[in-house]
């Protein structure tokens, strides 16, 4: 479980996050949603400490991440996996090398054990046959799946996804969403997905946190998202033409 308490973040004197307090539950896909510029990417980056925060705490099972020393922070980092918006695969490494990379750096496993783990992870994302290819030789959707395989290679407790569906066609986006949800349940991870994709919200939003102007506006789940009375959330959701038309 990840608990964010009274989080505050400024950039050049401009408040981007203000008094954000929220709990992300274990074994669930937790979604951070909101308009572009609402502060959801800053929130995700604050949670994973890709930048410093100006106030508040981020607790990983009770461990205040921003206040830990460097060594203990590294220990927590080894429990994290992250899927970036652009996949962030290493260009010069093959698919298998990308997935094996964290194992090479952090484990003392034998070559055979590492290969077995890589095969398992690639198999889990249905990409076993692409292990020898370079990231530039595979599609965007496949790159996302490789990034997921790399993120889960170390058996993480926490999985973070920054706009996992951006740039993907709707069918592939649904596949990625389903995969994230399956893996979250299978490995009992605390998964946080930063998205503004409506399909993701109604598909995998077991817990949804709506951010508006740097503050938590609404917290709920996919089951009560479409029935909410919150005007700001409703405006956001029903700005989708498809939903808007179907609701009339």
């Amino acid at each position: 479980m990840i608990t964010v308490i009274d989080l505050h973040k400024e950039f050049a004197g401009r408040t981007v996050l203000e008094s954000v307090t929220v709990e992300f539950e274990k074994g669930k896909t937790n979604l951070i949603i909101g308009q572009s510029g609402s502060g959801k990417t800053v929130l995700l980056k604050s949670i994973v400490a890709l930048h410093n925060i100006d106030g508040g705490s981020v607790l990983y099972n009770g461990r205040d991440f921003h206040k830990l020393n460097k060594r203990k922070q590294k220990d927590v980092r080894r429990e994290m996996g992250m899927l970036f918006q652009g996949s962030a695969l290493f260009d010069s490494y093959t698919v298998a090398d990308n997935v094996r990379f964290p194992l090479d750096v952090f484990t003392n496993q034998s070559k055979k054990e590492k290969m077995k783990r890589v095969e398992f992870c690639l198999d889990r994302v249905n990409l076993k046959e692409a292990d020898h290819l370079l990231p530039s030789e595979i599609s965007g959707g496949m790159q996302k799946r490789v990034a997921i395989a790399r993120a889960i290679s170390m058996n993480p407790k926490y999985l973070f996804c920054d706009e996992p569906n951006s740039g993907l066609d709707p069918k592939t986006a649904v596949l990625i969403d389903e995969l994230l949800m399956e893996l979250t349940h299978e490995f009992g991870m605390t998964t946080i997905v930063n998205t503004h994709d409506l399909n993701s919200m109604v598909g995998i939003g077991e817990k949804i946190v709506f951010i508006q102007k740097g503050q938590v506006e609404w917290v709920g789940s996919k089951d009560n998202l479409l029935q909410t009375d919150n005007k700001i959330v409703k405006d956001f959701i029903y700005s989708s033409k498809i939903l808007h038309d179907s609701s009339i």
Partner: protein
Amino acid sequence: MGLFFHIGRYSSFIFKVFGKPERFNIYFTNFFREAWSLGIGSLGIVVIISFFMGAVVTLQTAYNFESPIIPLYLIGLTARDSMLLEFSSTIVALILAGKVGSNIASEMGTMRVTEQIDALEIMGINPAAFLVRPKILGMIFIVPFLTVISMFIGMVGGFLASVGTGVLSAHDYIYGLHYAFIPWYVFYSLIKSVVFAFLYTSVPAYFGYHVKGGALEVGKASTRAVVISSILILIFNLILTQLLLA
């Protein structure tokens, strides 16, 4: 941003680059890979520029030595000392600042904007140490070999130019190469080339590592890295010459 900001951030960056490594065997692999790709990959350009520099220096010297009281073998000596003292270290460094420096800055910059550096950080890896240290150490390791090759090829270029154009005989040229040879000049050149290698790898890495934005900023960082590295090479050339030869 001010000069002192960059000096401070560069210092802290270098401190991070030489921080404790996660795993030595991976660093060794990367070290040899970088030494090969940056160093051996630059061999072609080093050979070409050294050959032509040696040839041109020899011919220019010959055309300036018109007095009959100046022995012709001094053309060989001048060509040799020009290669040893300046060309094989400083001019080669300036060329490599363009080739290797822009390569490193754009590679680091692209990794930054495509979040590959963030991915390493999330994994708990020190990205500066993991990515930059093998490049700096790899180049520092390989550059003395490149410098010695440059010296040799430059003198071969001078030989072929002088003999080929008939401005002096092979015997005079070779006698000039041996005449009043000071071995310290070779060490002086090697010391300079190592210091310059540190500059044209670490400075571009610094600019690339701290890129913010997209492709445009990567290009700008690459250009700035080459310009600043070249200026620093010239400044350190002056300082090292005063320190080592005065």
